[in-house]
């Protein structure tokens, strides 16, 4: 089990403050999606949750302990991270890439165990990459490549997975494929998933818990129907829209107006 939370978290780059005394608790065994406009701090928040950035003040807690004080390898056994646009080394095969996920479970004495091999195999099966395991990562399509990176995180075998825009640059079919895969991991293995998504409607479909970040703070959080309302979309994204109910899945569906006047 692993829960991650932020308390009075303030941080930024150089002199620019990005997060401003932000508080959030991400529910365990649920899919949480961070949404917000460009530059609102949602990616920064995800990086801070993954201990990639150290706070100016406040703290990120993993199971109640300040994440910056825990050994990084120990954290890596509880929490995996898929950053934005990762690039695999040239010539690396899918299997090699997935095997990198086993790093925190290995040690000087115990370099490659049977458990490592088993977990890599399981991750490949889970992500449907068994047939492509020996292929070079550079030869895969965008969707397959993203699955390979997710497989690496799966092989890391952590109860908590953080993903920064896992669907960017994918076409709609492959966006759905990646999100379905993440939902399966959540529903079948009880993994806590926290991710940043840009597409509000897909976020509504897949999120159990939604966190709207605005100007370095949590503007509102809750279920998609609590978060995605006409007023709040206006406040968070500065966008005029109407919200209707998805006729098939009954989640909120946002119809943006842009410059067009509402009919």
């Amino acid at each position: 089990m692993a829960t991650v939370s932020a308390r009075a978290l303030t941080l930024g780059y150089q002199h620019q403050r990005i997060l401003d005394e932000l508080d959030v608790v991400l529910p365990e065994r649920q899919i949480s999606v961070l949404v917000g406009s460009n530059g609102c701090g949602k990616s920064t928040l995800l990086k801070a949750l993954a201990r990639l950035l150290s706070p100016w003040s406040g703290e990120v807690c993993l199971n109640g302990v300040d994440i910056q004080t825990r050994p990084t390898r120990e954290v890596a056994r509880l929490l995996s991270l898929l950053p934005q646009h990762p690039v695999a080394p040239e010539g690396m095969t899918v299997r090699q890439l997935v095997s990198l996920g086993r790093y925190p479970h290995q040690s000087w004495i115990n370099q490659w165990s049977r458990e490592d091999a088993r977990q890599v195999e399981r991750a490949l099966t889970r992500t449907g990459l068994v047939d492509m395991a020996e292929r070079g990562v550079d030869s895969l399509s965008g969707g397959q490549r993203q699955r390979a990176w997710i497989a690496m995180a799966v092989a890391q075998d952590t109860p908590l997975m953080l993903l920064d825009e896992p669907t960017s640059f994918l076409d709609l079919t492959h966006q759905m494929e990646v999100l379905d895969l993440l939902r399966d991991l959540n529903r079948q293995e009880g993994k806590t998933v926290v991710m940043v998504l840009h597409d509000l409607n897909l976020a509504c479909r897949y999120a159990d818990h939604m966190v709207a970040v605005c100007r370095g703070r949590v503007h509102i959080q809750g279920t998609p129907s609590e978060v995605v309302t006409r007023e709040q979309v206006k406040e968070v994204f500065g966008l005029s829209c109407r919200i209707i109910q998805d006729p098939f899945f009954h989640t909120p569906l946002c119809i943006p107006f842009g410059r067009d006047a509402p009919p």
Partner: protein
Amino acid sequence: MTRLVMMLVLLLASLWLSLMAGAVWYGPSTVGHALLSASPTDVQGLVIRTTRVPRTLVALVAGACLAVAGGVMQTLTRNPLASPGLLGVNAGALFVMVMLVSLWPGAGVSLWYGGAFAGAALAALLVWAVAMRGQASGGPLKLVLAGAAITALFTSFSQAMLVIDQQGLDTVLFWLAGSVAGRPLAEVTPLMGVALVALFACRPLARSMNVLAAGEAIARGVGVGVARLQLLMVVLVILLAGSSVAMAGNIAFVGLIVPHIARRLLPVDHRIWLAGCALMGATLLLLADVIGRTVILPREIPIGVMTALIGAPLFITLVRRQGGGHGRA
């Protein structure tokens, strides 16, 4: 793995060839005899033991050092053009050493060698400081530009020493052109010790380097102590480049070319790849030295010139085939 064994076989063959070749060619039995029994009346044996064995060992270790330093730098910077030659580390080592030789000729070799390490560290620090400042800090282009500038700076300083110091001309020229000849074994033994320690120290870091090659965020995500790893890698590069420059002077292209060829031939696993770099770097330098000392008898072509002659066409071929370098660039 079979390819690694083939590389080892090739290295051993070049090693043997290097002991045989020269102004006078010795047969395998003469070489074997010279190595096994140290008879003072045996002139051939004396030549082999006092001139060919030292230069062979220097070429072997310096080649391995340069290639591995290049490989480590390419992973460290995620830049396919990174090498101790292009990023100024060799030039820095060379300059400080040449300066000490010119200004303080009586100081003795251990101080000069210390200067090589200090110079390598100084150049690494300067390149890093320049590349990390301002916009697009640490970007691949910026790093190479900073390296080129630092290389040019230190190289011209070194050449200025030639003008200042007419007496030490020979020593300075020796290092500037790059040569593995005429180094007494006793003088280079400590350098070889440092080099070997640094070479073998790469092995325990190889698994972490595998992850770092996939990017800093990925490496930190799986629990690599990235800052510590990068620092260790920089120290290794300084030790490897510094000892190779102190042993053999300015040798171009080995650190750049060999990692690329090894990447084509071996799987992308630093445990295997860096071992391949070491084997191929040593082989390349041994062969370059054999050619350099046999083609224009009774004179010799300095090994630094030979590696450039071999390396430049190889590099052009690589660039052309890849259409501009590397997937990661």
